[in-house]
């Protein structure tokens, strides 16, 4: 009665539609999840401060971080990307954000961290003017260490919703 192609067409359309519905439902379950995260970061010491040849200031720091991200993990969580960024304002730039360190957590068992870290990426300020004093004065007053947790969710053929971001600001 119906040809093989017709049946295949109907089958594929139905399968596609049902998978899309399941994906949306899986993503929808994330709206009910409210993570409660605790985190703390402090600068232990400044390892090195120097002026680059280009005139920019470069700092190397050692930070003490501790965090508990266990509550961000749901059945649908694929990975959690954690990073520590320095956010500050200078005379020339209204906003500077420099990521110092990041880490990927893939399961709940590894979600509790306490570590002493040195910055992975060079902390370089643009247009570091006159003397070292510029950088030092910027730090204690306008520095914020931001923990931003990006949660990636996945169902088997699911949709990723990186909108849900938990921000914790600790003023240092």
């Amino acid at each position: 009665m119906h040809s093989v192609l017709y049946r295949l067409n109907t089958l594929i359309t139905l399968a596609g539609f049902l998978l899309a519905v399941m994906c949306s439902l899986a993503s929808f379950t994330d709206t009910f999840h409210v993570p409660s995260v605790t985190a703390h970061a402090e600068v232990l010491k400044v390892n090195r401060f120097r002026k680059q040849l280009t005139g920019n200031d470069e700092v190397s720091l050692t930070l003490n971080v501790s965090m508990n991200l266990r509550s961000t993990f749901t059945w649908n969580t694929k990975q959690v990307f954690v990073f520590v960024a320095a956010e500050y304002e200078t005379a020339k730039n209204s906003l500077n954000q420099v990521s110092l360190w990041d880490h990927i957590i893939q399961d709940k068992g590894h979600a509790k961290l306490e570590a002493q870290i040195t910055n992975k990426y060079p902390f370089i300020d643009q247009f570091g003017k006159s003397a070292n004093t510029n950088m030092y004065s910027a730090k204690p007053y306008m520095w914020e260490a931001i923990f931003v947790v990006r949660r990636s969710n996945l169902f088997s053929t699911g949709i990723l919703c990186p909108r849900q971001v938990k921000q914790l600001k600790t003023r240092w």
Partner: protein
Amino acid sequence: MGWIGETIDSIKSLQIRHVLSQAVSLGMIVTSALIIWKGLMCITGSESPVVVVLSGSMEPGFKRGDILFLHMSKDPIRVGEIVVFNVDGREIPIVHRVIKVHERQDTGEVDVLTKGDNNFGDDRLLYAHGQLWLHRHHIMGRAVGFLPYVGWVTIIMTEKPIIKYLLIGALGLLVVTSKD
């Protein structure tokens, strides 16, 4: 042998009207696909609303063969966002994460540095010669959704074009010889 005779008969018995109506339906299919694509471009505000991940530089988050849905808004670009950008001189867009942002006080222009999660160093090697920062006009959108594995179709068709020709040839044959 009987099948070949049947095919030749069906090609001979085509009437003009039938051929024309088939051409119109084919045209409708192609234009509706185009409408959907352009519509997506308008809704998401991005030049390329769907991209395929071509390398493993964002693993374990995005693997090769995943497709990403992009959205571009006027919101400022901040550290931690996953952005898709075009480098002058390279036609393939790159999907990486922003690690540094410097926003000017006076003009509001922004200098951005990106890095793939799975790469060791930042993307300065990928930028154009002498370019140290990305600017807003390089960025095509932020990743807001993804579907795994679906992009393999595009990757296979791009890397082995013979399969693309085979598929189009088979489809064409199907259209010509079908009775409805």
